Structures are given as structure tokens and as C-alpha cells.
């Protein structure tokens, strides 16, 4: 072809090549211009935007949970502390597959299979970027086991966190309560953002009630993180000004509890199902708040496994129940001093008027028998003897004369049948019956009617009458103070964690009980002194004590005995036996402590509950050494103080 055979024109070629090079240079300049424009756009026009993005990239805000406030007993002995522990936390946002991750953690033995579902719910309930604890308080061995497999668990990290430690385990657990992992229900009642990074929350007792003070304020810190979200501290980088706001530790609480006293009471109760409440009558401070059996709250802070929890919840002795606050018992004969006072106030009788007790009481013209606990009767009894020997017949008659509504109106002044308003949740009200109450309580018309027989058994603290040990202690303290009342409380002072300043909370007075003649108080208190004196139902309580005690025994029937049956305690199964009660205060002339003791199925107030009250008094009123030496039923080493009714 002609074209193929044409000759090379070197000169033309060179010129053409020159033009192409110029064109290429032009194109290069255009492309460079394009690139420059793009860089200008990115680095100048949109610089702020991208700066922000890069900041957001590398800085992550991490909450710093505040150290929880401590719980100290009234002398400063720590009852709840913080202890560093390692826990496993999972951040949903950084975890590719939560279900798979939990399943593999369970396979590694770091999570119980039973807990997987619950843990998953807890994770899903929190925000995606929150680290949710999966397992608290890892052991060294578990730490090591996880460390080996850590690369397989993106989003799961070991974090050092403060956990709660109750150094005395179960001592005072029902007052202190406990903390546990924040649950779904808890999230409904808290501001979730304030709990960012926090694992534990108060569930019960003081831990729950004073949660806001104890929790403190969450701090935060900005962290430099890499693309994987892991924290980095690079040497080469000019550290950007990372902000940090220190958390504010929760306030420490000084409880009213006397730890030594608490321990003495718990030891004295041993394995019995019982409650003891000791109150300083002068200000309402609860010195001991005992419900046995106890349980170890440390387990809750660690996270109970399902089987562990079931074991506690299903225990026949119900250790989780706070008997002092939520146990309702018929007060039995411990009510008698109050009824006696009502009788004096209403003018039904006076201290000296006597009644004849033949062991049985009847309504005039009725054949129905109301038995005295002492079959043969007490003979001629005045008010003092009636209280000291707990004569039922005397009080049947007196309460019949008072009438149920007047009795009700008088008793509620002592706080019976209502919540005392103590600073822990869950208090039961108990019950002081009245005609109005019965009308409301029963649906059937025929059941709404109040029978006089119900009045007389109410007068000895049986029937519908129900009280909590806390109410009994509070009412006893009211007698000790001759009508002056203070709301029971478990926290007496708050220590600001920042300044260390201790703010003492003033006692909260309640409307008092007034009687027409202050001597009425002397009458019933003297009767209560008679209880612990020779011839009284609990004379051993006073024996050998250098201080004077006023008390009252009580026995509450668990089930009622038929009209013509005899209560034979040896034939009744242990759990159907009567509850033993005892209320007392001491010293009589200068009351410093009032106690209520309830021992479930303990049979006799005087012999079972009385010595426990004595142990509490000794521990509180005697110098340490003497208290240690003087066991409760000790022989009278020191001659009893004089003036005791024989």
C-alpha cells in the first residue's frame, strides 16, 4: 500500500513529537490543576469538617465510675468498703456477634450457661456503646484463661473496677442491704447516663435507700484510641489536650448501728430464726438491726449464679427475708404494758385495784372460756403483778372495758400498726385492729362484725394484732422516754467524700404519747421492772446486771388452740411452736437502749428471748471487759441494785 511504503520524514516526525510533548505537558498541568483544586477543596474549604471527623475518630469519651461511699458503723468501723477487682465487660458496638461471643465465653467456663440469657438481656438493655459487665470479680485463673483467648473476643475486655466488699460478711446484712449488678428493672428507676461505667447498684437496705448519696458523680476522660477502639498512648504523638473530669466519690455514711452490738446479738441468736432491734430511745438511733439467719452479701456483688440464688431463695429458713422490718408477729403479752397504760389513761382501772385470777375469764353470762397461760391462775393481782407475771385474765377484763376502738386509738400513738418511717424500704405496717378496720378488711357482711371476744384477745396481743420487731422496739423506746418518740433511723451522719466534713443528721421527733398523769408511766415501768425481778416471768434477765432493766415477755401463738384443747408443746412440730418475744429497756432511770427480741418458734419469751436482750444490754452498757466476762445467765456476782419489787 502507498501509505505503508512512504518514507520516514525524520524532521516532520520530530516536530510532530514536539507538539505531542507540549500537548502532554498541557494535559499534565491540567491534571495537576485538578488535583490541586481537589486538595484545596479538602484541605482549605472543608478543613474544619474533616478536622472534626478526625478528632471524633481518635478521641473516645470513657466514663470513670465514682468510688461508692463507704458504710461505717457509729464508731467508724467499716461495714462496706470498695475493693479493686477485675471484671469482664462487653461492648455491644464492638462485638461482631453477641450471642456467639456469650456462647463461647460460656464454653470457656467464664460464664455459666444458665446466666447466658440473663446476661444477654442486660447487654441489650444498655446502650450499644456502653461496656456492660458480663462477669464480675474474675479469679486469677479466670483472668489468665481469658487473656489467652482475648484476640478471639473483640469487644470483650478485662477492666479493673471497684467492687463492694462487706468485710463482716453477713453481719448486719439486713440493715446494710447489698449491691448487685444493675438489672433491667433498675434501669427504669435510674438516670442511665449517670451510671455509665458503674456496675453495681444498691438493691436493698441502706445501700438501696441511700443510693443517691452513695453513688457519687460519674467522671469521664477522653481517651486516644486507634481504629480498633483500643486505647493507645503513643510516644510520637503530640498529646492532644485530653479532657478529664474526675469522678466525685459517693458520700460515706455513718450508720447508727453499733457493729459490736450487732455482732453480739447475731452470735447470741445462733442459728435460730429471729429478729432483734435495739434502739437508742433518746434519738431513735437503731443500734442493732438483726434478722437471722443472715446471708453473705458479697455474693451479690460478685454476681450470684442462678443455682446460688435459688439456694438462698428456696432456703426453708428464708434468710433473704428481713424479719426485723418485714416479719409480722402477734405481739403477745409484750402488748400488756401498753394496754395497762391505756386502762390508766381511760380510767378503766387504777394501779392498785385488784382482780381475781382463777386461770379462766368469761364474759358475764357466757360460757365461753378465755384461758390464762397459768392454768391455776394468779390469784389476786393488781396492775404491777399483772404485768410482772403476765396475767391474762387481768388484761381480758381490762381490755373488755376499754373497748377495741379506744384500744386501737391508744396503741397507734406508739407507732404500732403503722410504718415507723425508718430509712430503709420495705417496712411492713403490722396491724392494730379496730371495728372500722374489720369492716373494710372483710367482704362478707357476717364477717365484718366485731365480736367482744376479739377485743379481749387483742388485749393480750393475740388475734388480729400484728407487729414488726422494729415497731415493738420503737414502742418500747417510747415507754422508756415516757411518751417521747423519735423516728427510728439507720444513718446518723453523712461524710462528704470531697471535704471530709461530717454532717450529723438531727434526730427526727414524732408526735409523742401523752397521758393525763405522768405517774401512769411509773406504774407500767415498775410492772416491767417486776417482770425481770424474782417472781417475774423473766427474772433471769436482771440477775447479776449492774444496771436496772424493765422488760416484758411475750408468747405469740402460731396457730390457735381450740376451746377445750390443751396446748401441748412437745407434740407440736418445731415450726408450729409459739414465737418467743421479749421487749425491754435499760437502765430504767436513764434509758439508753430499748430492745425487742422475737425468736420464731422459741416458745418462751422469758427463757429464749430474754437472755438475748441481756446479752445486748451487757454489750452496750458495760465496759468492754466486763461485757466479755458477764455471760447472760451469769450468777449474781454483783448484788442487784436495790428497789426491785419482790
Amino acid at each position, binding site marked *: *500500500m502507498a*501509505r*505503508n511504503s*512512504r*518514507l*520516514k*520524514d525524520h524532521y516532520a*516526525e*520530530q516536530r*510532530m*513529537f*514536539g507538539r*505531542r*510533548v507540549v500537548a*502532554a*505537558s498541557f494535559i*499534565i498541568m491540567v*491534571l*495537576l490543576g*485538578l*488535583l*490541586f483544586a*481537589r*486538595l*484545596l477543596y*479538602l*484541605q*482549605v474549604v*472543608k*478543613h474544619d*469538617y*474533616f*478536622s472534626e*471527623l*478526625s*478528632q471524633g*475518630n*481518635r478521641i473516645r469519651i470513657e466514663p470513670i465510675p465514682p468510688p461508692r461511699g463507704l458504710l461505717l458503723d457509729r464508731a467508724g468501723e467499716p461495714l462496706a468498703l470498695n475493693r479493686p477487682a477485675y471484671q469482664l465487660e462487653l461492648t455491644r458496638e464492638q462485638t461482631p456477634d453477641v450471642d456467639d461471643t456469650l456462647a463461647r465465653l460460656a464454653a470457656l467456663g467464664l460464664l455459666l450457661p444458665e446466666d447466658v440469657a440473663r446476661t444477654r438481656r442486660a447487654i441489650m438493655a444498655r446502650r450499644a456503646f456502653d461496656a456492660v459487665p458480663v462477669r464480675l470479680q474474675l479469679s486469677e485463673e479466670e483472668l489468665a484463661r481469658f487473656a489467652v483467648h482475648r484476640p478471639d473476643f473483640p469487644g470483650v475486655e478485662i477492666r479493673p473496677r471497684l467492687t463492694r466488699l462487706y468485710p463482716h460478711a453477713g453481719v448486719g446484712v439486713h440493715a446494710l442491704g447489698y449491691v448487685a449488678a444493675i438489672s433491667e428493672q433498675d434501669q427504669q428507676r435510674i438516670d442511665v447516663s449517670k451510671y455509665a461505667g458503674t456496675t453495681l447498684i444498691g438493691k436493698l437496705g441502706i445501700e438501696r435507700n441511700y443510693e443517691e448519696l452513695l453513688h457519687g458523680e460519674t467522671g469521664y476522660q477522653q481517651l*486516644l*484510641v*486507634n*481504629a*480498633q477502639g483500643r486505647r*493507645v498512648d*503513643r510516644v*510520637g*504523638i*503530640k498529646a*492532644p489536650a485530653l479532657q478529664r473530669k474526675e469522678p466525685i466519690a459517693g458520700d460515706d455514711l455513718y450508720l447508727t448501728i453499733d457493729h459490736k452490738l450487732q455482732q453480739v446479738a447475731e452470735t447470741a441468736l445462733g442459728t435460730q430464726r429471729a429478729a432483734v432491734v435495739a434502739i437508742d430511745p433518746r434519738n431513735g438511733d437503731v443500734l442493732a438491726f438483726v434478722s437471722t439467719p443472715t446471708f453473705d452479701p458479697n455474693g451479690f456483688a460478685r454476681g450470684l449464679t442462678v443455682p446460688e440464688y435459688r439456694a438462698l431463695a428456696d432456703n426453708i429458713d428464708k434468710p433473704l427475708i428481713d424479719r426485723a422490718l418485714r416479719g409480722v408477729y402477734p405481739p403477745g403479752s409484750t402488748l400488756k404494758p401498753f394496754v395497762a397504760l391505756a386502762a390508766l389513761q381511760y380510767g378503766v382501772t387504777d394501779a392498785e385495784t385488784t382482780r381475781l385470777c382463777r386461770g379462766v375469764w368469761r364474759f358475764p353470762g357466757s360460757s365461753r372460756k378465755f384461758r390464762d397461760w397459768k392454768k391455776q391462775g394468779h390469784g389476786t393481782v393488781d396492775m404491777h403483778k399483772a404485768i410482772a407475771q403476765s396475767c391474762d385474765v387481768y388484761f381480758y377484763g381490762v381490755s373488755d372495758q376499754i373497748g377495741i376502738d379506744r384500744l386501737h386509738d391508744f396503741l397507734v400513738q406508739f407507732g404500732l400498726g403503722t410504718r415507723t418511717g425508718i430509712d430503709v424500704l420495705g417496712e411492713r405496717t403490722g396491724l392494730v385492729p379496730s371495728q372500722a378496720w374489720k369492716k373494710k378488711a372483710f367482704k362478707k357482711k357476717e364477717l365484718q362484725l366485731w365480736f367482744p371476744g376479739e377485743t379481749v384477745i387483742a388485749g393480750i396481743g393475740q388475734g388480729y394484732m400484728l407487729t414488726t420487731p422494729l415497731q415493738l422496739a420503737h414502742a418500747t423506746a417510747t415507754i422508756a422516754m415516757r411518751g417521747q418518740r423519735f423516728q427510728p433511723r439507720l444513718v446518723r451522719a453523712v461524710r462528704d467524700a470531697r471535704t471530709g466534713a461530717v454532717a450529723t443528721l438531727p434526730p427526727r421527733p414524732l408526735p409523742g404519747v401523752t397521758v393525763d398523769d405522768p405517774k401512769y408511766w411509773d406504774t407500767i415501768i415498775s410492772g416491767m421492772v417486776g417482770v425481770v425481778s424474782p417472781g417475774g416471768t423473766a427474772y433471769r434477765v436482771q440477775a447479776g446486771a449492774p444496771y436496772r432493766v424493765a422488760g416484758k415477755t411475750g408468747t405469740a401463738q402460731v396457730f390457735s388452740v381450740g376451746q377445750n384443747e390443751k396446748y401441748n408443746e412437745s407434740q407440736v412440730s418445731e415450726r408450729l411452736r409459739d414465737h418467743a418475744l421479749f421487749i425491754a429497756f435499760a437502765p430504767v432511770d436513764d434509758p439508753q437502749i430499748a430492745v425487742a427480741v422475737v425468736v420464731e418458734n422459741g416458745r418462751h419469751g422469758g427463757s429464749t428471748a430474754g437472755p438475748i436482750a441481756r446479752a445486748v444490754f451487757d454489750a452496750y452498757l458495760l465496759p468492754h471487759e466486763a461485757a466479755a466476762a458477764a455471760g447472760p445467765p451469769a450468777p449474781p456476782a454483783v448484788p442487784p441494785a436495790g428497789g426491785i419489787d419482790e
Partner: protein
Amino acid sequence: MRTEIAGPGHSSRAQRTFTLTGRLLEALHIDGPLLLSVLAVCAVGLIVLYSAAGEDVHIFLGQAARVGLGLVVLACVAQIPPRVLRIGAPFLYGIGLLLLIAVAVVGDVAMGAQRWLDLGFIRFQPSEIMKIAVPLCCAWYLHERPLPPDFTTLVIVALIVLIPTLLIAEQPDLGTALLVMAGGGLVILLAGLQLRYILGLGALIAAAIPLVWQFLLHDYQRQRVLTFLNPQNDPLGAGYHTIQSQIAIGSGGIFGKGYMNGSQAQLEFLPERSTDFIFAVVGEEWGLVGCIVLMALYLLVIGRGLYIAAQAQDTFTRLTAGSLTLLFAVYAFVNSGMVAGLLPVVGVPLPLVSYGGTSLVTLMAGFGILMAIHSRRKLVST
């Protein structure tokens, strides 16, 4: 002029040193200006790499050693007379083609692509050879023929370009395939391809895009293009590279965050920061100013290359020098354009700066060819 201003003794000594160096370079067939500008780019590259690699001294020294190796290759290639290069071009191309076929049959699979040939003592990518062999072979073929090329010639040259391109694209290595194709295409363009062909080809390519999209591209390649069009589609997957590199560059601003202070790079948000995305480190730590300086250095290299091409005295050397230089320019633009979000993400390193040996050595060999061409131009012309 300057020697007159300076003192006589001092000036003569400096002058002597200068001329001595000049003579030495001349004897070694080394072009001083090109060497200096290349070394400048390499120096910048090493400085940036030290930061991008997180102050890893091993990586830094390794790359410095590769630069050294590249310079040795450059010096060796510069000794080859252009005539020998021309005669050897088809053989080099043939060997390259055989190796590509060998890779397709027995090559190592690394990172999902079959690119490497393991010769026992060394593993290398035959596709790298083609970056030089294709332009050389095209220039060789066009050398004897009248230019602008006629249609038959064009078809044959197109085959020379497309066969290795397709083999490389099949590995798959889209970036290198594009560069190889660009290398050959640049030769054709410089050979005086008529405007009507250029327009026709453009139309053809436009028509072919849907077909290529449907039948030739791999899934991940399609994904890259789609992501380029809208990176936010897949911010943690395919779009991650683009988004992070733009954040890096954009947050650098005019003066940058300072050497070794780029949070995107140092905190590992920027992927492949020491290889394909090293330009983003420049943009983040040195800002717009740093980018301009780097581009200016590239311009120096390109300008000197084009000058050498313009000075070349026969068709083969002209086309070779021109296409290799422009290929270098394409290299630089494709990479920086991709990092800046102007182009889709293709596996093209930033020439002389990105960490990695193969492309560096190839580039140095290319500069060696340029120098060989330049230092012998008089011999050819007279």
C-alpha cells in the same frame, strides 16, 4: 559569572569539584538534574515513610536499601546503549509475556491475586517487567515505520499492548494492567496517533465500558468503582479507605498537623498508610504545602524526562523516553488522585514514595533508560 564574584582560590576549587563530578557523571552516563530530582523525591518518600510506618526503623532501613538497590539498577541500565535496548526490546517483551503465562499457570496466590512468580531465591511480579517492556516493544515496532502510524501498524501495536494487559488484568491486578496499557497507549499517542483515531477510540471505550463492567471486572473491582462513586455506601467496608484518606488529607489543612503527628496515620485509622495511601500521610502531616512541594518535585522529574525525550534523536529513543516519563506522571496522578478521592481505588503505589521494592526498581530502571538515551544523543545525531 558567579565564579568571578567569589574568591579565586575558593572558586577554582569548587569549580574543579563541580566539573569533576560532572565529568564522572557523564562518563557513567548519568544525568545530573534527573538524578537529583529523583533523589529528592526518594528522600521525601523516606522521610514520610518513617512516620507512616510508625517510626519502624526496619521498614525505613529496608526501604532505604531498596532505594540504594534501585540506584544501582539505574546506573547499570544507564550503561546500556539505546541501540542495544532497541534490539533487545522484543526479546524482553517475549520473556515478560512467557513469565506472565507462567504466573497464570503456576504463580503464587497472595492476597487473593495470582501475581507472584517464585523462582526459589526470589519472588517477583512479571507484570512489573511489562511496565517497561511494553513501551520499549511498542517503540521498537514503530521505530522503522513512518509516523503517524497507519491502521495496520496500529492494530499490531494495540495487540502488543492488550495481550499483556489482559493477562495482568486476569491475575487480577487492575492497577498494573492500567499502567501497562497506559505505557503502550502513551507510545502510540506520542507516535502521532491521529485525532480521529483518538476520538474513535474514546467512543469505543465508552461503548465498551458496560461490557467490561459486565464480563471482565471482578466483583471487588466493581465494588471499588461503586464505592468510589459513593464512599458512604459502605463506610466500614469498601468505602473505608477513601473516607479515611480524605479525612486525613482534609484535616491536614494548609500546613498539616506536623511530622509524625497525623492522628489518622499514627492511630491506624488510615489503611495501607505506608504503601498505596502514603500520599494521605503527606497531606495530613505536611498539609497543602507538603502536597505542593511533592507535586513540584514530581514536576521536576517529569519536566526533565520530557526534556530528554524532546532532545532524543531517533524515533525509538524519543518514544521510549516520552512514554516512560509520561507513564511516571500517570503513576503519580493516578495514585494521588485516588487518595484524594478523584479516582477509584486502584492498586497503584505513589512512585518512589510508597513502601515496596518492585515498583521502585522498575521506576529506577526506567530512569536508567532515560539517562542512557540522553547521554548518547550526540553519538546518534552525528
